[in-house]
C-alpha cells in the first residue's frame, strides 16, 4: 500500500516535471507546476500515513491513545503551509503571465529581435 501511495505521488510529481520542461506555453507550465506541487504534497502526507492509525484529533472515544495510534500530524501541518505557498506562487505567476501577454501578445517566452546583448 505504501509503495503504491509513494509511487503515485512521485509519478504525479514526475508528470509535473515533464510538463514543465516539455511545454512552452506559460499557462501550461504553470499547470504543470501545480501538478508537481500536488505530487510533492501527496508525498509529504503519505510520509505520515499509517493504515492502522487514527486521525490526529483527540476525541472522547479514543480513551488513552499512545503516539503510535495517530498518523503523523506534522507532515499534514507542513502540507497546509505548502499549499498556501503554492497558491501564492500561482497567483503571482498568473498576474505576471497576464502582464507579459499584454506587453508582447505572446504566451511563450521567445527572445525579442534585438537580443544577445544588443538590446538596451
Amino acid at each position, binding site marked *: 500500500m505504501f509503495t503504491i501511495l509513494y509511487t503515485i505521488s512521485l509519478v504525479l510529481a514526475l508528470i509535473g*516535471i515533464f510538463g*514543465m*520542461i516539455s511545454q*512552452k506555453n506559460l499557462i501550461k507550465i504553470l499547470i504543470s507546476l501545480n501538478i508537481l506541487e500536488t505530487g510533492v504534497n501527496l508525498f509529504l502526507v503519505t510520509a505520515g500515513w499509517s493504515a492502522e492509525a487514527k486521525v490526529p484529533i483527540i476525541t472522547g472515544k479514543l480513551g488513552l491513545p499512545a503516539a503510535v495510534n495517530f498518523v503523523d500530524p506534522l507532515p499534514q501541518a507542513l502540507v497546509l503551509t505548502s499549499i498556501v505557498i503554492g497558491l501564492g506562487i500561482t497567483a503571482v505567476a498568473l498576474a505576471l503571465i497576464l502582464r507579459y501577454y499584454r506587453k508582447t501578445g505572446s504566451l*511563450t*517566452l*521567445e*527572445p525579442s529581435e534585438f*537580443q*544577445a*546583448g544588443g538590446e538596451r
Partner: protein
Amino acid sequence: MISIGAMIILAVVLALITRVFLMKHKLLSWVLFSAYTAFSVFVLLKLYGNWNYFETMNLSYLVGRINMRPGFLNKPLGWFFSFFVMAMSFLNSFFSMGFSKSSHSRNIVPHWLMILAASLTVFFTKDWLLFIIGWETLGWASFFIIMGGKQKKYKDSMSYYFFSLVSGMLLIAAVWMIGIKFRTLNIHTTTRSMIILAKNTPWQAFPTLLMLTLSFLIKSGAYPFHIWAPRAHKSAPADFSPFISGIMIKFGIFGLLLYVIPIVSKGYAGYSIFGMPVFAWVFSWLGIITSAIATVLAFSENDAKRLMAYSSVANAGYIITAIFLGTALGIKGGLLHAFNHMIFKAVIFMTIAAVVYRTGETDMNKMGGLAYKMPITFMTFLLGIIAAAGIAPMNGFVSKWMIYQALLGQKHYFMTVAMFFASTGAFLYLYRALHAIFLGQIREVHEREVKEVPFLMQIPMWIGMILMFGLGVFPGYLLRPMMPLMKTFGSSISESLNVVQGSVGSLNTLFSTVIFILGVVIAAAIFFLSAKTHKTPMMDNYTSGEDPEEWNVTPNKYQFSYGFYEPITKMFSWALKRSVDKAYFKASYILKIIGREINMIFTDHNNWGYAALLGLLAMIIGGLFL
C-alpha cells in the same frame, strides 16, 4: 631613523593627495614627486651598509592559519634595485617637469607614486604576502598610466594588464605552494627550506619553482610573453617609457635573483646537462631565444619606441641567460648588465621622448636629420646606442663582456655564438634608428619648427651621458658597492676601479678606452683630411637614377631608412610569419566566440527546465552511481 614602511605610506598618501587635490596643478605634483624621490634616495643612502636592518608593521594579517606580521628587511639585493628605482625616477622627474604639456595625461604622478610604493614593498618585504600585494599593485597602476585616457591606447594597456594578471596569479599559486609546504610565508627562511627540498626531492620543488620562474619571466618580457613589451612602450606616455623599459622589466629579474636563482644555482639536484641543472639550462636558452627573436623583430620595426622596446626585451634575454648560468661571474654580469641597462635604456628613451616632445612623432620614417637641430639629444642617443650595442668605452660593454666570459667559462659555446648573433643584430638595428632619426635629410617641417629641448629636460641626459661613460671607464664605481650584494651570491672578489676579472682573462677598461679614443682620433683625422663632403638635394641620392615619382615617393614621404633591412627581414620571414602575436589574437578571438555561444544558452528562454533538471540529474545520479 626613517623607516621603510613610513616611506611606503608616504608615497601612498602623496599619491592620494596628488590624485584628489592636485589634478589641475601638474607642475606642483611633479615637484612633489621629485622631492619624494630625492628624499627616498637620501634615506636609501643612509640605509646602505646597514644590512639586516628590519622593521615590523604593527598590523597582523591572518590568512587561514598563517598569522603574520608584515615587515621589511634591508638586503643588498632589494637595496640596489630600490636605489636604482628611486634614482631613475628622480632623474626622470626633471624630464617630466619639462615634458608636461597640456595634452599630457594628468594621471601619471599619483599612479607613479603608487608604483614606487609597490616597488619598495616588493624589494624590501620580508614575507611573500606583501610581495604579492606590491606585485599586483604594479599591474593596475601601470595600466592606468599606459592608457593615459586615450581610447586607441586602451588595447595595448590591456595587453599589459593581462600579462600582469597572469604573472600575479602564477605568483599567488606558487606562494601558496610554498606556504602550505613550509607553514610560513617568510621569504628568507623558505629560501633555505626550498634549497634543502630541491636538493633532496627535486620533483617536489619543481612545480613551485616553475610557476615562480614563469611569473617573473612574464614581467621581464621573455620569449612567449614578450608581446606586451612593444605595445606597452609604444602606448605609454613618452616620459614613462624610460621607467617601463629601465625599471619595470627588471622586476622579474629581481624576483628571479631573490628566490629562483639561489635555489637553482645552489642545490637543484634534478637531471643535469652540460654541467647545469636542466631547469636552469632550459631557461638560459630561453633567454638566448628571447634576445634572438627580439632582435629579428626589431629589424622590421619602423616605430622608434617599439624598436627600443624590442631592444629592451633582447637585453632582458641576456640578463636571464647570464643569471641562470648560476656562476658567480654570470650573476655578477647579469646584475651589472641589469643596472647598466637601467641607465642606458632610460637615457635612450628620454632622447626619444625629447624627439617626441619636439616633433610629435615616433614613426622613424617620418623623421631624419634631427642631429643638426637637437645636438645634445643626438649626442646622448649616440652614446646610448653605443652602450646598448656593447661597444667599448661605454658601460654596456663591460657587462656584456662579463656575460660572454661567464658563458665561455662554462663552455657553453652554442650559447655564446647565439648571443653574438643577437648582439650584432642589436648593433645593426640601433644604428638604423640613429640614422633614421638623427642623420640623413631633415624634413621641411622639422627644419622650420624643431629646436633643442629646454635645459630642464637636458639635465637627466647630461647625467646619463656622464654615468654611461664613467661607468664604462671605471666600472669599479658600481662593482665596488656591489660587493656585499655579490657576497650573498657567493663571490668575494674585491673589485678594482678599472680592471674586471673574467673567467678567461681580465679586462682593463681604462686601457680599452684609451685605445678606443685613439681610434676615434685617427678616424677623425682621416675624415677631416679626406675629400670634403657636399650637400645634395633630397631627391638626388639613394634612388640610383630611378624616378621616385613612379613609386609615389615624394620628398615628404621619402626616408633613407625605409625598408632598410629588407633582405634580413625576408631572411627571417619564416620566423616572423609564425609570430606569437597571432596565436594570442587567435586565442582572444576564440574566447570571444565561446563567450557568444555561452550567451546563447542564457538568451534562449525555453531551456531553463532542461538545464535545471540536467543539473539535478548530474548531482543525484553522479552521487548515486559514481
